[in-house]
């Protein structure tokens, strides 16, 4: 045993039949030396205990009063779960430690009590922490803080929530200069970038990197659908695998069935129950379900009352669900790291291999599953290092800081540069962000009265009024959801939420699935959808916007290799082999030496499908470039859609020569203007505007009509672009959008490589290989171009004809 572990703790470990793991002791060592640490460990490695152990030991003497340890995780549910797990050692060893949770759900009375009489350990989320920091007594409250534990660092670093948390951590360091940070992370591709992210100085050097041993190699298989492995041409729901999945569920005690979207969760849940002759208890868990219903499912899982749960990423993170025997990933695995983490959900014991099954939903996905299986077994990891911090989040932080009390911009600038995301920010950018918070920062001569902040004679910035502070507190947070509408019965029973866009397509009498129930749409009342239990067969499937995960470029490359190596096809089911053979007969296979482009008429439009296999980001950029040139040459493009393998666009007029289209001058002209017009930039601006506090989420007494908000962000965008093209929020928008696009330099290299190798196949109808992309969601429409003009004129002609008849 170790010199670092006090006797009562050693005894406790022995009573559990455990011995402390080396990474747990390494974390204790770091704590003794007073240095921050990043622990990288697979799931089930006793990560949480390792994070808390130093705090429990310090608190064990019982002399500490005030807040000692703050734990922040991306999920509220995780905090509750951790609180329960901590209660066991605390009870067993009779430790004088009080642990409490604080989240958006915490009652006002409890918050007040926590404020007056702080617990030793407080568990919370980045948003609740930002809110705590906006109160004037934050400095006193956090002055006793010794340790900040950040859980699931890999899920936070490089996101806006992560940016916010990093900024909050820098505030905490001001209140408590000797603060130690303990980061807990799953295995990642860039450990030292993660270490810098948790570092109090923004540099990896100040952080002890602790790596746990890898778990046992997992057991990963591809699970083919029923009907002897017949795989559909397209579709991403995997419903055809329902029987096969049920068979596997019956073999294990507890299975998590992971899917890629909420819609898929609903449909697969239905399909499983349709076949569930043995009445195996199977639950459903996703982010659109009512919180109470989700909590019930979580509880049932923890108590072992369920045999399987169909879940989206809502169960990705490290909740301790006890004994999960296996996971089944239905549909494309998308990212190797995410798949590895999902597989990790099934290793409650580190010394036993996790069991995972990959169930492809269509033919392309078989290739992806095979590629992903190989990559997971090789311990490959994907994902980029965290990007630079977002300026809209910084704007929110400036106001958080100002709400707690006046601040000097010089001091705040030095403070935020101690965080990795903002370590490189220029003073000019910082000053522009502060000016935006102060008075909007508009170039146009502005109406002078009513600034948000004012400067005193010392140069300190103050918030102008209490009303502004109160309103701002309701808008804290960086999560901007797709606008969702609550679904309720006439009596007010809550069913869950659906995407506002989907709701707008429903007419009374339509039926749809939610929470595994068939509901009939009755009408829209303010911001609530009224629905009743429905009857009838063909329900519409809710479409949820949400974020679409794209597969990593590495995985896309693996898929391409399989595709043009017919000898590698032997691992594939026969239907997939047949599909690829059919593609080579009807059209061509994309190969290493040729660049395949297909054109064909489809649904009244003229389609172009190109197969660069360069990953979704590069294809998005390519889609923008193609539609720009098609618009310029009068082809009337209406939209494009990109996935990781392919980009497709469609026009109202025939598309002309592909050699001309895919020439080097594709990159000429003003791409910035075209990009600014795109739907993608408008969506990005909306998020930026909400996070930066340009528009509000909600305000007292009135829940703002969300549709109006969407429209107005578009209108604001147009006005801002016209009169203030260099405004800080427009720059923030462009920066953010560019992260999702591939730079032109790389694209230009790609075009150079392709030039002279273009293989244009003109077809009379859709090709076998193009089917999946044509069914892809997330289409980008070209607004207000020649294509839409043509459609409007077409509608007019119909009315003229009808008038004559």
């Amino acid at each position: 045993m170790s010199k670092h572990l006090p006797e009562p703790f050693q005894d406790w470990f022995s009573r559990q039949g455990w011995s402390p793991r080396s990474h747990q002791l390494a974390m204790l060592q770091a704590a003794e030396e007073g240095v921050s640490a990043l622990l990288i460990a697979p799931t089930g490695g006793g990560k949480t205990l390792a994070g808390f152990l130093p705090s429990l030991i310090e608190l064990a003497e019982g002399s500490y009063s005030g807040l000692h340890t703050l734990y922040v995780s991306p999920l509220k549910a995780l905090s509750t779960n951790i609180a329960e797990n901590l209660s066991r050692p605390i009870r067993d060893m009779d430790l004088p430690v009080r642990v409490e949770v604080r989240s958006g759900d915490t009652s006002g009375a409890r918050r007040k009590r926590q404020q007056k009489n702080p617990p030793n350990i407080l568990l919370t989320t980045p948003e609740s922490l930002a809110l705590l920091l906006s109160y004037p007594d934050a400095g006193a409250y956090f002055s006793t803080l010794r340790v900040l534990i950040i859980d699931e660092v890999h899920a936070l670093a490089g996101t806006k929530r992560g940016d916010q948390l990093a900024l909050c951590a820098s505030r905490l360091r001001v209140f408590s200069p000797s603060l130690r940070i303990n980061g807990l992370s799953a295995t990642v591709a860039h450990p030292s970038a993660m270490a810098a992210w948790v570092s109090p100085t923004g540099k990896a050097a100040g952080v002890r990197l602790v790596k746990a041993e890898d778990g046992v190699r997992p057991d990963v298989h591809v699970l083919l659908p029923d009907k002897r492995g017949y795989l559909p041409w397209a579709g991403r729901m995997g419903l055809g695998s329902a029987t096969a999945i049920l068979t596997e569920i019956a073999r294990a005690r507890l299975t998590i069935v992971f899917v890629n979207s909420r819609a898929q969760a609903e449909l697969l849940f239905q399909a499983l129950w349709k076949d569930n002759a043995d009445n195996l208890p199977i639950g459903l868990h996703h982010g659109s379900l009512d919180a109470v219903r989700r909590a019930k499912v979580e509880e049932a899982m923890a108590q072992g009352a369920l045999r399987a749960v169909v879940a989206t990423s809502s169960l990705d993170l490290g909740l301790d669900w006890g004994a999960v025997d296996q996971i089944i990933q239905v549909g494309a695995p998308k990212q190797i790291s995410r798949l590895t983490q999902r597989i990790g959900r099934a290793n409650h014991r580190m010394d036993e291999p996790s069991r995972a099954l990959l169930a492809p939903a269509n033919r392309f996905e078989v290739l992806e599953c095979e590629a992903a299986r190989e990559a997971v077994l090789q311990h490959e990891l994907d994902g980029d290092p965290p990007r630079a911090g977002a300026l809209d989040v910084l704007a929110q932080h400036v106001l958080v800081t100002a709400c707690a009390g006046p601040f000097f911009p010089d001091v705040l600038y030095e403070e935020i540069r101690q965080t990795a995301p903002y370590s490189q920010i220029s003073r000019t950018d910082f000053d522009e962000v502060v000016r935006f918070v102060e008075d909007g920062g508009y170039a146009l001569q502005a109406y002078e009265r009513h600034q948000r902040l004012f400067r005193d004679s010392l140069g300190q910035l103050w918030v102008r009024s209490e009303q502004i502070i109160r309103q701002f507190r309701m808008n804290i947070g960086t999560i901007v959801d797709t606008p969702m509408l609550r679904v309720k019965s006439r009596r007010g029973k809550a069913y869950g939420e659906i995407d506002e866009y989907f709701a707008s397509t429903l007419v009374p009498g339509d039926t749809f699935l939610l929470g595994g129930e068939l509901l009939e749409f009755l009408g829209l009342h303010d911001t609530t959808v009224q629905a009743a239990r429905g009857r009838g067969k063909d329900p519409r499937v809710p479409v949820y916007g949400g974020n679409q995960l794209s597969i990593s470029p590495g995985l896309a490359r693996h898929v391409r290799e399989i595709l043009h190596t017919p000898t590698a096809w032997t691992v594939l089911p026969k239907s997939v082999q047949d599909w690829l053979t059919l593609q080579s007969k009807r059209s061509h296979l994309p190969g290493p030496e040729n660049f395949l482009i297909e054109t064909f008429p489809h649904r009244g439009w003229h389609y172009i499908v190109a197969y660069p296999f360069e990953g979704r980001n590069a294809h998005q950029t390519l889609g923008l470039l193609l539609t720009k040139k098609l618009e310029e040459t009068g082809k009337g493009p209406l939209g494009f859609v990109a996935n990781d393998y392919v980009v497709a666009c469609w026009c109202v007029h025939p598309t002309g020569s592909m050699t001309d289209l895919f020439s080097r001058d594709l990159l000429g002209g003003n791409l910035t203007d075209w990009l600014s017009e795109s739907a993608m930039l408008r969506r990005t601006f909306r998020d930026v505007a909400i996070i930066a506090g340009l528009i509000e989420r909600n305000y007292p007494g009135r829940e703002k009509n969300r549709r109006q908000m969407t429209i107005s962000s578009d209108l604001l965008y147009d006005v801002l672009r016209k009169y203030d093209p260099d405004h800080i929020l427009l720059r923030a928008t462009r920066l953010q959008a560019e992260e999702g696009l591939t730079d032109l330099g790389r694209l230009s290299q790609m075009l150079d490589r392709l030039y002279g190798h273009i293989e244009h196949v003109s077809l009379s109808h859709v090709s076998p290989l193009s089917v999946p992309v044509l069914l892809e969601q997330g289409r980008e429409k070209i607004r207000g171009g020649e294509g839409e003009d043509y459609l409007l004129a077409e509608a007019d002609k119909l009315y003229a004809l009808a008038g004559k008849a």
Partner: protein
Amino acid sequence: MNFREIILAGEQIWLLPGGAVFLPATQTLVVADLHLGKGTSARSRGLLLPPGDTISTLEKVLRLVESCSPRLLVALGDSFHDPGAGERLLDEEKALLDTTLRKAAILWITGNHDAAPIANIGGEWLNEYQSGNLIFRHIPSARIPAGKAELAGHLHPKVRIRIRGHVMRRACFITGNDRLILPAFGSYTGGLDISDPALATLFHQGSAAYVWGADQINRVA
């Protein structure tokens, strides 16, 4: 300029791109719901919207006046977003308005946002105006006298168009036997779908919706 002619109560009405209307008989230009000053209206609450909406709307109005050379410009109410909007006009915005006033007389119809005349703004103010068989008012009335037709705003009509799977949502003119509702002309104005009861009940006997493209005004519903 492209326009589309419709006839209401025997009067020629030209629908113009951008959402304005021109009456050739009286050389009158009509716009609705300018909502000047909307961008700066919430500043006191700490909401600092980009202030360019007013100038952008005024520039659009001036361009229209320059291209149509009307004798009279009628603004169909909610021209100013709130009673204080006039005071908040910047020098540049006042100058634009003055230039417009030199080129055409302006008749401001009062709306629900500007129920009383705004001080220090040139032009005449009326609750309602009649010219030939046409009645001009802000809020559409339930009943229109026989032989007359009404031009109104207030509702900011928009239409959803679905053609071969491609969906567009655009501001539109909506017209029936005896009325025309203009789309909002202001830069920060949202819209109400023409299927909304507030709009649909005004057109029991059927309606036509018109949307402008780059080259022409199209009937789409």
